């Protein structure tokens, strides 16, 4: 039911979820059937944490709809040869033929088996944008669920472009797929490269603007002065990849330069494992019978199990205690008596050498600055204060630490995430009002309720769904090509896990088949949607080359682009303003999306689909029917595959499984079920209601933003500071891999340390400088920075995005320190070549003061050679020069978005 032409002007509610910082609610103005404007949905002003506003990307939706470069008919490739230089020879075909081709392939797969000789799924699907394509693909997830095994792990930049280590360790420590500050209450925030003013979306900008005016002090530690740095009270230019040293030095200052009672000892005693005793082999000292970790009880003068409620635990010290240690693979050390130290004592010893003076040399930041920041962090923690939230009295600790990309992923990511979390714990600012908070879960279940995902685990900690590392259950044969379940225990095994594994390994292994893993194969059918791996991956040209080998690629195509250039079938789907979907909103999610409401919002077909573009749900239903999966597909929808279970205690809007349903019927049922879920069955408002009203919500208490009360309610602790479990799991993983002759993951295994130590992380990159062109003066760190105008939006082809982005420094070239550029004879606007060991990219020099002299910056990655409009921008891309390698892959399977390069001037500014 689209808006017919020549009707009066109307404003229709819908949502924008082009980036993970959404969704935001908007209204689209439709005049005579044409979308002409978008505007905030002020009906949601009280509901949405960003005042109902929408970000700059949403304003591009009108152009996105009417972009003349859109693919508007299904197309088939006529040139069997694939490659960048090959003309695909796409010719228009009918939907019937296109879907027939796809169904033919799929049915062939069903006949020959869903997995191939290597045990890998024959069907693969890649989606971009941090999970946002799911907000646009209608019921396609139900089709994929009905299908069976699908490889979602062919990456398009995940790991290197995301907060990878934070995702995994964050979920492990405090159900924090992403980590944010409690911005409305925080008074002091140390942000290591977290560019929240550009990446936090509307809610981030809104909440931080309010906080600034309220008096928040944010210290931004980063090599180049980002948008967020610009809006911070202080910018500390740090040498790239040395953030862990800064954080370790902060730990040192808190632990060795302040009295114990300056810390939140009560928090450490009651809510962490600081008191747990650690035996000589580095594992918790346990009771021989109950196997419970022990702590030293001051009252009884002996060791007692950690859950002894009467115990007066010593937080630090060295004690002679009998007990056992349990190592990897159930290896047990029995100690009639041994010297055991508390986890806290080990922490203190661990950071003793990490003085600010030590860190200053590494970070190129004065020791006095590091010390001052640490002291300010402590001073602002307001230890002992409480605050009333929703009638509950909670600790109030208004200090937080956030980490940005390239700090919290790749080598050093573990160290930074650990130190940040421990620092927060030391002052009791973890998961309490004002402090450092997790936002959402993706690896723990249920995904729509972070607090409900808390379950008791071993040793008084939360349970965590590690991939097994024991001899019996470890998966020697991975489920999919990136081997997440074999190599990365922390990646767990939920629907998100495949995309959170070492996704680039799926590409890397094609060149270098790994020893003793199944032979890397190509999927028979690969679906692509809202992703462009040939541009967004590290070593993007290399990935593009590999994509050319894929036998049958189906791309849901907006315009032609570098990835669907390799496709066999292009399918035009109705875009953002043309199709229908209901989305769960509210609660807590992503970095700054802390709502006081939760519910559902509708994306509606405000205008008719252009050309032959089809609603994704119709496409999914058609594929289900043509592959004989209609019943299962309907069943998956009924079970909640599109976000809402269609039946509950007092309602049932389930679809009849044996017949085909139209898109409107499906979404009407989904809407009714959503209304019923929200109201306990009282409301059954359907699609028509949502089309008119846009969204429906119920209150979400602010107390649910904080994890600590939930842990306390369940008698659980944060698994901090000592990482006994990770140490054991790492050792077990090493055993499994070595038993199977896999030695190539040994470097990654070293990350599994109970107390992570500083390693010379920058050297991992700069060791190869001798391979670079020119002398040392020409060698730089190349970094990138988030662009609100572009990030995740897949909107490089949108003129408005380009135009608005160019108002912000660096979007039209490569940012170089002005003084350094002068030394190299580079003037503003000169064309410079940036060359890594891999290859070169080029662009215009943008001279700025707000960047370290040893660093250059490329915002956005634009080496497009196919995407209309974008290909004419003549912009550089660090993805062209960033090598993809096992060496630069950490234990979580992530890389870091930086590369060593040489810079040389090519031609003068025109």
């Amino acid at each position, binding site marked *: 039911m689209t808006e017919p032409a020549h009707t009066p002007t109307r404003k229709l509610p819908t949502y924008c979820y082009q980036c993970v910082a959404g969704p935001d609610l908007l209204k689209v103005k439709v*005049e*005579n059937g*044409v*979308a*002409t*404007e*978008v*505007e*905030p949905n*002020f009906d949601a002003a009280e509901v949405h944490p*960003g*005042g109902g*506003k*929408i*970000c*700059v990307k949403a*304003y*591009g939706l*009108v*152009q996105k*709809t*009417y*972009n*003349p*470069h859109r693919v508007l008919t299904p197309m088939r490739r006529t040139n069997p040869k694939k490659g960048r230089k090959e003309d695909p020879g796409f010719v228009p075909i009918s939907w019937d033929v296109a879907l027939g081709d796809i169904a033919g392939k799929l049915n062939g797969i069903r006949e020959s088996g869903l997995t191939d000789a290597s045990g890998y799924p024959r069907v693969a699907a890649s989606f971009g944008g941090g999970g946002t394509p799911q907000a646009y693909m209608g019921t396609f997830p139900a089709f994929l669920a009905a299908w069976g095994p699908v490889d979602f792990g062919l990456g398009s930049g995940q790991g290197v472009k995301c907060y990878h280590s934070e995702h995994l360790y964050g979920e492990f420590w405090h159900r924090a797929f992403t980590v944010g500050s409690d911005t409305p209450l925080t008074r002091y925030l140390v942000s290591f490269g977290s560019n929240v*003013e*550009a990446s936090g979306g*509307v809610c981030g*900008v*809104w909440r931080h*603007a*309010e906080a*600034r*005016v309220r008096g928040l002090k944010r210290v931004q530690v980063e090599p180049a*002065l980002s*948008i967020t*740095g*610009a*809006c911070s009270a202080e*910018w500390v*230019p740090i040498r790239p990849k040395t953030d862990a040293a800064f954080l370790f030095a902060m730990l040192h200052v808190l632990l060795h330069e302040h009295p114990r009672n300056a810390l939140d000892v009560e928090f450490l005693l009651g809510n962490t494992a600081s008191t747990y005793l650690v035996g000589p082999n580095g594992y918790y000292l346990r009771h021989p019978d109950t196997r419970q970790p022990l702590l030293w009880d001051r009252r009884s003068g002996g060791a007692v199990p950690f859950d002894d409620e009467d115990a007066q635990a010593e937080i630090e010290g060295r004690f002679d205690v009998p007990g056992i240690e349990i190592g990897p693979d159930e290896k047990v050390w029995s100690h009639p008596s041994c010297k055991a130290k508390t986890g806290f004592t080990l922490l203190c010893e661990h950071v003793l050498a990490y003085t600010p003076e030590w860190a200053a040399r590494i970070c190129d930041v004065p020791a006095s600055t590091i010390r001052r920041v640490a002291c300010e962090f402590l001073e602002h923690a307001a230890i002992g204060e409480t605050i009333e939230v929703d009638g509950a009295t909670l600790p109030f600790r208004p200090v937080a630490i956030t980490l940005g990309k390239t700090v919290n992923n790749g080598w050093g990511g573990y160290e930074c995430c650990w130190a940040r979390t421990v620092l927060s714990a030391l002052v009791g600012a973890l998961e309490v009002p004002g402090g450092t908070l997790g936002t959402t879960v993706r690896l723990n279940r249920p995904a729509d309720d972070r607090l409900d995902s808390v379950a008791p685990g071993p040793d008084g900690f939360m349970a965590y769904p590690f991939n097994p590392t024991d001899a019996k259950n470890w998966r020697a044969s991975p489920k999919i090509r990136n081997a997440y379940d074999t190599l990365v225990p922390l990646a767990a095994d939920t629907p998100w896990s495949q995309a959170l594994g070492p996704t680039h390994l799926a590409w890397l292994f094609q060149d270098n088949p790994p020893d003793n893993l199944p032979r890397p194969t190509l999927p028979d059918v690969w679906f692509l949607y809202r992703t462009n791996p040939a541009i967004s991956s590290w070593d993007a040209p290399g990935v593009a080359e590999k994509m050319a080998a894929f036998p049958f690629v189906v791309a849901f195509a907006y315009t032609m682009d570098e990835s669907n250039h390799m496709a066999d079938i292009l399918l035009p789907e109705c875009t953002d303003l043309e199709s229908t979907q209901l989305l769960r909103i509210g609660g807590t999610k992503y970095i700054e999306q802390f709502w006081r409401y939760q519910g559902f919002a509708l994306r509606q077909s405000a205008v008719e689909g252009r050309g032959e573009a089809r609603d994704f749900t119709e496409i999914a239903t058609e594929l289900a029917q043509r592959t004989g999966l209609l019943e299962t597909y309907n069943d998956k929808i009924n079970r909640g595959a599109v976000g809402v279970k269609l039946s509950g205690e007092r309602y049932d809007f389930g679809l009849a499984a044996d017949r085909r349903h139209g898109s409107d019927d499906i979404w009407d049922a989904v809407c009714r079920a959503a209304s019923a879920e929200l109201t306990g069955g009282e409301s059954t408002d359907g699609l028509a209601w949502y089309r008119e009203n846009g969204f429906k919500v119920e209150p979400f208490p602010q107390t649910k933003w904080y994890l600590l009360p939930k842990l306390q309610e369940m008698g659980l602790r944060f698994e901090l500071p000592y990482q006994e479990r990770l140490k054991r799991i790492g050792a077990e993983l090493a055993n499994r891999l070595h038993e199977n002759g896999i030695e190539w993951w040994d470097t990654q295994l070293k990350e599994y340390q109970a107390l992570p130590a500083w390693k010379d992380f920058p050297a991992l990159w700069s060791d190869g400088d001798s391979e670079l062109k020119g002398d040392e003066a020409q060698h730089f760190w190349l970094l990138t920075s988030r662009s609100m*105008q572009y990030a995740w939006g897949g909107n490089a082809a949108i*003129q*408005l995005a380009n*135009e*608005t*982005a160019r*108002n*912000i*420094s660096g979007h039209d070239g490569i940012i170089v*320190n*002005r*003084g350094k550029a002068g030394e190299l004879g580079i003037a503003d606007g000169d064309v410079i070549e940036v060359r890594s060991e891999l290859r070169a990219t080029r662009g215009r020099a943008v001279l*700025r*003061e*707000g*960047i*370290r*002299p040893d660093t250059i910056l490329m915002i956005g990655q634009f080496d497009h050679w196919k995407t209309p*409009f974008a290909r004419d921008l003549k912009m550089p891309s660090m993805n062209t020069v960033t090598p993809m390698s096992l060496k630069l892959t950490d234990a979580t399977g992530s890389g870091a978005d930086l590369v060593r390069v040489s810079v040389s001037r090519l031609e003068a500014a025109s």
Partner: protein
Amino acid sequence: MTRYVMVADLRRCVGCQTCTAACRTANGTPPGVQWRRVLDMEIGTYPDVRRTFVPVGCMHCEDPPCMQVCPSTATRKRDDGIVTIDYDLCIGCAYCAVACPYQARYKVERENYAYDGEPMASEVAKRDPDRIGVSTKCTFCVDRIDAGIDNGLTPGEDPEATPVCVNSCIAGALHFGDVEDPGSNVSRLLAENHFFRMHEELGTGPSIYYLWDRA
């Protein structure tokens, strides 16, 4: 007497250009014609550097030099302070453009579109040939203000009666209202904070006030 002004809180602005995009879309200006835009200014030298984002556009001056110089009387100032351009009178001499110290005026000689070739349907819907060959600039969304007032709404408070850039601002940096009304949001902001106006020394009396600190 009413005088509409805009307040831009520099403490809040993050330079996201949402206002730029909102203005471009709502007013249907062609590519490159940004009646509202945000500057990215850098101050100081490494490592002592500040970066400030500054929304600019027509300042709707109390004593608009553009109006003084306009030979056709196309540029006028309303009683409520809004400086307007009558596209039917303007001869496109661009004298106003060189008279404006805020580079707020644009003159487009021919229609142009986001993508080469034919206009998109949305551009067709917004097409206004009257704007070709004449001066254009920010209008403070005067049509919205007038329509809003006609409907009993208050500019600066009710979104329907408020400039789209203000509505769009995701940092709460842009505000609009009647500075002569001591109870208005802009009057309150100006009373509570330090502010300056750009190029005050030129005597134009600009109507965009920049907040930079609490008073």
